[in-house]
């Protein structure tokens, strides 16, 4: 039986916006195809993981206060994480985790939380604590030459700068900054984004892209994924794309 080894980072801390759903969806789509989802959870106090041992690493977003507690812990693995990224392990990073993998995060009071510095972007909070990029988001994404629309929900105060390789073009809602055309950060084996929802819940094509990449890399083959019944997902996408993209046209 094939399996993917998934490292789920700080499940008890980075769990505020339902991002745990991404793990459930990955597991669901793997198991439906007879592939084992071997999910290993890591949090503060657990034995140190070797990131290179995994096929996929996932981390979500959390409460501001708790995020600074774990930043100190994560930074211990900086070099190991860099090696894993370079060796092609897939990283899916949402919101707070997206920020932590950059150079730094500068808070409202000017306090700087150093990031892992794995990627070249950095994030700074807006001075006004009440101003946050909140709302539904639709972005245009190119997955290995295939254009698809990705639907999610953003809720972040930090504005992320210096992203050269964004995840997608914003069609509706906010991007890396207020009114930004670009959303997220994208490499062949890294998706870092502000999209909750959870991200994978309404984007089965994206989920399968991540699964296929991880299987291809692990088994050194060109995996053909068995199609699944995505009736609900397709109905949901149709409804929401119609709603959000028509709204944009009406309220440019």
């Amino acid at each position, binding site marked *: 039986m094939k399996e993917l080894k998934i490292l789920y980072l700080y499940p*008890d*801390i980075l*769990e*505020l*916006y*339902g*991002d*745990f*759903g991404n793990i*459930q*969806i990955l597991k*669901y789509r793997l198991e439906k195809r007879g592939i084992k989802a071997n999910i290993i959870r890591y949090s*503060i*106090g657990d034995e140190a993981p070797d990131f290179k041992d995994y096929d996929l690493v996932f981390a979500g977003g959390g*409460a*501001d*206060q*708790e995020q600074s*507690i774990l930043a100190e812990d994560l930074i211990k693995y900086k070099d190991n994480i860099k090696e894993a990224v370079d060796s092609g392990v897939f990283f899916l990073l949402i919101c707070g985790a997206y920020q932590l993998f950059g150079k730094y995060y500068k808070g409202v009071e000017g306090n700087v939380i150093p990031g892992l510095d794995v990627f070249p972007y950095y994030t700074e909070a807006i001075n006004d604590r009440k101003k946050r990029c*909140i*709302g*539904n988001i639709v972005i245009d994404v190119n997955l290995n030459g295939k254009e698809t629309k990705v639907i999610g*929900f953003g*809720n972040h105060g930090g504005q992320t700068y210096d992203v050269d390789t964004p995840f997608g073009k914003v069609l509706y809602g906010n991007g890396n900054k207020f009114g930004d055309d670009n959303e997220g950060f994208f490499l062949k084996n890294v998706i870092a984004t502000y999209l*909750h*929802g*959870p991200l994978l*819940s*309404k984007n089965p094509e994206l989920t399968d892209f991540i699964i296929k990449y991880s299987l291809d890399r692990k088994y050194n083959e060109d995996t053909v994924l068995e199609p699944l*019944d995505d*009736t*609900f*997902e397709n*109905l*949901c996408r149709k*409804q929401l794309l119609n709603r959000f993209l028509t709204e944009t046209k009406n309220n440019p």
Partner: protein
Amino acid sequence: MRNFFIILIMKILNVILKICGKHGGNFLGKVAYKWNPKIFKYFKVNCPVIAVTATNGKTMTNNAIGYVFKTAGKKVVSNTEGNNMETGILSTILKNCTLTGKIKADYLVFEVDEGYVPVVFKDFPLDTLVVLDFFRDQLDRNGEVESLILKINEFLKTYSNNLVLNADDPNVARLGKANPDNKNVYYFSVDKYDFATTEQKEAGEGKFCPFCKTRLEYEYYQYSHIGKFKCPNCGYGDNPIYKLGTEVDLKNRTFKVDGVTYKIRFNSIYNIYNLTAVIACVSLYNMDTDVIKEALSKFVLNNGRLEEVKVRGVPTIINLAKNPTGSNVSLRILNEDDEEKELLFVLNDNIADGFDVSWIWDINFDNLNNVSRIVTSGTRAYDIAIRIKTSGYDANKIEPYLDLHEAVENLYKTDVKKYVIANYTALQPTRKELKL
């Protein structure tokens, strides 16, 4: 003089509203507050003022406290309809005061939105504050729960009247230390119940000690993060208990406090907590045990808060659930019931609900007990269908309908017992569709 005229005009407006058959909600308060934001100072109160705040359970606890006092023959003024922001509370006061601002009552009992406690009671006396729980709730509207707690904590630093706190919620119990000189802090708790777990079953807050940031240790969880906790580093969590709910029997709907058995109309651990808070609160006013017993044996809510009715002859239980814990509490009741049942989940994403529906992924849909079919509806009918499917529930037994009428018609094609969960703006349209 100015306040006199504001009240006079509001009284006239209230009469006009009544003639037009309108209830008014928080309209009067909105107008009056805009006119004079310091109007709260003007009222003359000669009776105890009690306030209840929490993420979940405000309406129920508030109304039950008022009901106990009424059962004792007291005159109670209360915002029983759930208008719980400063304008809603002001509306209630305006309707019940004289032109000179006197409020004639034996007790004022208010449910107050978590964010508005400092706003309302900055200029208004407060005799007892009851705090039940804090959960994540509509993050895109309210922000993180921590900022709300900090606001209330700040207010409590200079407050020294009665404070009734849930000892089993680390984010509530911490408020007892806001003013170390306050001798009037009363903690309530409930003994471990049959479905308590050693692992946390549902999403919750308060993983770390609010005082020293050490990870909290739990002996058990009752639901969400409510349970017996302790900080292994600084010892936080060991508070003296004023009222303890014991021998919780959800099947027979009874529990005990101080050896007295209370027969109640509710069957969830969450309500046992609320009612223990009620007993703690009214005990501070020397209410007779027999009065409390009588009141609690009759008290029900008919507004979609665990409302038990028959629809088209079919037993139906309806509950409002606007956040993960509200939904998880409903599903606990459903799972503790072995009978065959069908579930309707109505999920909207209107402004009052919050646009973000990702909180449905914090609902624990695992291993639903004897649920033969699930119908979903609301503006996010497909989102909730995807959520339930991913939890492992058979997709062939899930029927999503964007149209609520269609959903209800299909739900009642069978006469199997129904559980209905609806979020904020979905609740009243759903009740209407059920002809309630």
